[in-house]
């Protein structure tokens, strides 16, 4: 194993563990912070795969913006949800989970089945063994492709962003105007 493999292994473990904590931790604020760590880990994986522009965009958009907006959302919404479940006993929590149909065995089966199916398909497939040489300047590569081959999707994405911006402001303002 080379150094890259070890670094990838470490980053992947951190990413997966923090993703696991996002789902399982009690306090929702902690879940938001674990989500930020997951985004940082994904940015590290992007870096190792040679997508340095995407890694920077990931840090800016996800770590900088989406984590912050989620924390704002948590703080502006209800207070009693901050603490989460009140079971201290692990076994009591586990049994209450497994006996309820909403949070019980079926979602677990669905998620594990989906992931297992994907892993099986991936492990059986024929994949190219060695990566191509990494593109040296991904910003130029992406910029040229965005403004030549993908110019119409690019404009559509900007319209999507504009509509989302207006929609979010309109949704958040409506209540105050009627009060």
């Amino acid at each position, binding site marked *: 194993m080379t150094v890259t493999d070890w670094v990838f292994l470490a980053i992947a473990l951190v990413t997966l563990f923090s993703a696991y904590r996002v789902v399982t931790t009690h306090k929702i604020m902690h879940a938001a912070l674990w989500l930020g760590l997951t985004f940082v880990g994904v940015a590290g994986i992007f870096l190792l795969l040679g997508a340095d522009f995407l890694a920077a965009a990931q840090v800016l958009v996800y770590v900088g913006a989406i984590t912050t907006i989620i924390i704002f959302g948590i703080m502006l919404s209800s207070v009693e949800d901050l603490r989460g479940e009140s079971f201290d006993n692990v076994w009591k929590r586990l049994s209450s989970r497994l006996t309820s149909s*909403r*949070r019980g065995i079926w*979602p677990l089966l669905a998620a594990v089945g989906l992931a297992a199916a994907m892993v099986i398909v991936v492990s059986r497939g024929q994949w190219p063994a060695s990566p191509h040489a990494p593109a040296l300047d991904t910003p130029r590569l992406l910029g040229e492709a965005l403004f030549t081959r993908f110019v119409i999707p690019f404009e559509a994405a900007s319209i999507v962003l504009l509509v989302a911006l207006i929609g979010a402001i309109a949704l958040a303002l409506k209540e105050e105007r009627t009060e």
Partner: protein
Amino acid sequence: MTLSLPVVLGVGAIMFGLGVYGALTQTNAIRVLMCIELVLNSVNINLVAFSRFTADQALGQIFAVFVMTVAAAEAAVGLAIILMIARRKTQIDIDQINLLKW
């Protein structure tokens, strides 16, 4: 073996499973949004990995850029909706939100 494709895809698949499990089981609407972000991120990992192992490296990365755009829009609009519901109902438990209008 330096960073083979199935390993990266496996990481993406496990993260996808975690996100799906969270989105199915959580009752807090904001937590569900977070798990959807996990799912979108795992898809991005797969796209970037594929782009590294194909000749045309711009394709997968540009797809990932668009996924990121849609995820940002989704987070903004979703949180605005959640905030509006929280103001009116004083809770965001998705099992209790069962009215289209109130």
